[in-house]
């Protein structure tokens, strides 16, 4: 009864993870690609449909559980982390995936997102970030960029957008990754998230074809991806771009200001250029990467931070188990505890 028990790997195919339910996202929605990536990943990690639970809140992304042939719980707006926490405390052996969006997870449910991360409940949290409210028809969301025109911000939104990965790190998350819907690397990121024991936070940029079309084209469009995406790999230098796209570049540390900077890499000699080597256990580096502004810098993608520590459920339930040791669970005795007196029959 603890999550140290290795879960038996089960042989499945992508087909085994499809339900008979008609998928109801808009044609062209990024959610389709994420669904496929998840359904492709689950057989690869040997997941067992009988032992897998998808939990979600409310919003387009939160319809996800209906389309995965496993156990699924479509709950209420923003609260999926709290349901997931109850599920994991009741049965830590279940493999729980939590699907949320930028409105569900960062706005109405921001509080719960914070607490599931700081407690470190062993679940995979997939936050689909399309920077807009889709299911309510296009209002600006907490991750919408300043100036977003929407039905509720006809003059352009003035709120500063939240940074989900920075929020997660600030909340004490021990695994943070980023990817986007149609990326071929998404299954790899999902696998890493699943392999991490503890709360694994994955921000997935997702194209809302109707209300925020091609919002992420700055770095996902074909012509610019190469020079605007920094894919992080543990132990590898932080390089991006290519000779074809105007030169190989890298991320280095400006020692005077203690900030990151972009440097040119000449003839492949990244060491000479001072390019940093990614270390997923370096929390200070993670802070800089999640805050790295897109534009002057590329978008940091892949596993940004991965440094496990004991999970909430193993710690809490372990403590309970200790407390039970040597104690007699005799209800009759418990009821008669304290200062008692006996009334004799007359």
């Amino acid at each position, binding site marked *: 009864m603890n999550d140290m028990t290795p879960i038996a790997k089960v042989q499945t195919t992508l087909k085994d993870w499809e339900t008979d339910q008609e998928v109801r996202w808009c044609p062209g929605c990024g959610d389709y690609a994420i669904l496929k990536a998840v359904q492709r990943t689950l057989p690869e990690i040997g997941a067992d449909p009988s032992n897998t639970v998808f939990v979600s809140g409310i919003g387009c992304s939160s319809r996800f559980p209906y389309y995965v042939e496993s156990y699924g719980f479509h709950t209420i707006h923003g*609260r999926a982390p709290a349901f997931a926490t109850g599920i994991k405390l009741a*049965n830590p052996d279940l493999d729980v995936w939590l699907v949320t969006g930028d409105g569900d997870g960062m706005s109405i449910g921001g509080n719960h997102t914070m607490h599931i991360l700081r407690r470190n409940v062993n679940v995979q949290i997939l936050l689909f970030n399309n920077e807009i409210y889709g299911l309510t028809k296009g209002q600006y969301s907490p991750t919408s960029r300043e100036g977003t025109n929407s039905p509720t911000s006809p003059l352009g939104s003035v709120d500063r957008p939240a940074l989900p990965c920075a929020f997660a790190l600030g909340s004490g998350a021990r695994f943070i990754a980023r990817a986007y819907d149609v990326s071929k690397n998404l299954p790899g990121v999902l696998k890493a998230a699943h392999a991490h024991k503890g709360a694994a936070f994955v921000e997935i940029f997702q194209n809302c074809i109707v209300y925020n079309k091609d919002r992420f084209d700055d770095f996902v469009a074909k012509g610019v991806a190469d020079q605007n995406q920094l894919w992080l790999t543990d132990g590898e230098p932080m390089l991006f771009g290519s000779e074809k796209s105007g030169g190989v570049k890298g991320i280095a540390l400006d020692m005077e200001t203690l900030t990151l900077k972009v440097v040119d890499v000449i003839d492949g000699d990244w060491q000479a250029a001072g390019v940093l080597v990614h270390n997923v256990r370096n929390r200070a580096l993670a802070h800089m990467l999640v805050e790295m502004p897109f534009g002057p810098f590329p978008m940091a993608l892949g596993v940004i931070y991965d440094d496990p520590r004991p999970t909430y459920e193993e710690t809490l339930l372990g403590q309970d188990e200790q407390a039970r040791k040597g104690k007699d669970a005799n209800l009759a005795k418990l009821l008669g505890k304290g200062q008692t007196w006996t009334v004799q029959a007359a």
Partner: protein
Amino acid sequence: MATLVDGPDALTGGKDTGGTDAKAPEAVVVRFAGDSGDGMQLTGGQFTLSTALAGNDLATFPDFPAEIRAPQGTLFGVSAFQINFGSTEIDTAGDQPDVLVAMNPAALKTNVGALKPGGLIIADSGEFTKRNLEKAKYEVNPLEDGSLEKWQLLAFDISALTLEAVKPFGLGNKEALRCKNMWTLGLALWMFDRDRQPLIDWLNAKFAKNPVLAEANIAALNAGHAYGETAELSGPLKQYHIAPVESEPGLYRTVTGAEAISLGLVAGAQLADLHMFFGGYPITPASAILHNLARLKEFGVTTFQAEDEIAAIASAIGASYAGQLGVTSSSGPGIALKGEAMGLAIMTELPLVIVNSQRGGPSTGLPTKTEQSDLYQAVYGRNGDAPMPVIAARSASDCFEVAIEACRIAVEYMTPVMLLTDGYIANAAEPWKVPDPASFRPFPVKFLEAKNGPNGELLPFARDEKGARPWIRPGTPGLMHRIGGIEKNPGTGNIDYSPASHQIMTDARKAKVDGVAKSIPPQEVSHGETSGRLVVVGWGSTYGPIHQAVRRARRKGLDVSHVHVRHIWPMPSNLGDLLRGYDKVLVPEMNTGQFKTVLRDQFLIDAQPLNKTSGQPFTIAEIEAAIEEALK
């Protein structure tokens, strides 16, 4: 007038004592009042224990400010503890105190008005300083100006006497004065002829790590006791012996509502053969349940302090979904926050127990005072047609059975259930005959283990004869399915918001909850006849004062009966017919008439309200007067 001897009629020959010997009253009401730093709740609690050990029946009413440490000496910083005890059945904490112990001017000012004419005031004159008198807004010292002459006054310098008693222990002035409450308790123990030894044992255990403090407190206790013996010779102070109440033989203890709910939930989970998951968030006066259960892990309990009220209920629903008995608990404002999640539990048909320790509202209202004003919230307070069983506890000891009943309904009908208690019941203590857990009928849960459809398919929303759906734990091989808050197909549970499905499912949810009525006992008359001129209908913690008021009225020959309703929703199926058998229906409630409205709605009867929303329980006299008025 017939001689009435029940109730809080005491030392001073209140009107009800008739011709009985004032030396041996049947019941006495004592109120300890002091600054919130004076330890009055502790004094009251220990006096309660000694009362219970002396074999008296009792009821208590702790009444304290919402502030943890209100400024010293102020009127709003007064903390009081009232106890009614006697040699007959006691159901309320008493209408009017016979004895008031006032530890400072503020305590005297805020409490003396309640004291029975002729009652005894014991005041610590050492605290009636110029400064304290000012803080209590007294211009003249009331101990000296004759303003207390309708009562008996015993004023002496308890502070100085305490300092004298604990002098040998070399405590600082502040620490020494903290022993005042034990001095007072010693005097009270003498007044009612109580054994000091259990208190001495308790003090030794409490201060095991600091024997000097234990000795000092014991010395203060003994000094207070000795003072009584000496003072008896000369003054109005007399010793009384209250005979033990005649009780059923067996093992007894004192219990508060919060304790009894916790124990009942543990018992309920055992009877259901389930592990219990309790998700809670601190709130007055509900927190005590979370505190209690956090210490009962060995009984198969997980407690989770969530980040907010919503997460507390959501985690409990998550645990129920995963196959444990989910329980959450709160008070009015917290219950409001949980409303949406209750709707989800209703929609997904998962068992859940929600305990509401009601307090005065709306909004933050009166956090530490009692009220019954969440009945509408419990019965109606959710979006959509969202039926949910509601049951209410009438007293601290009743909480145990009611908690078990809530667990039973939740798992047998796959539904959330709300258990209503209130601040008064949660904090009040009373003697409790310790029940035998084996005397309760078990209701073990059977989870679905294989596909249940006629063609070998899985139907998570197929229904049994009670209208309940199967409980399917994730992790069960081959039973994968999806549930959620969206309207669903009546069998498969797949998303389906077709007109027919919503009609069928709405009807099914209602029929299921209505059907709970078939599993509950028919309504009985608590006291009196099954028909007549007047019935007083109560629910929750008004049981005590209604019961006593009806008893007194009947002794006067009035045609009045008492019906106490435990099952608020659905109500017992015979309740309407029963109530129609009386000419008049009176519903006393600590709200503006909520149950009265439900009764009118359900049965088209002319139920009349008797309402009180002062944050204080009804007195017996208030209800008795309403009975007499109704029967004029």
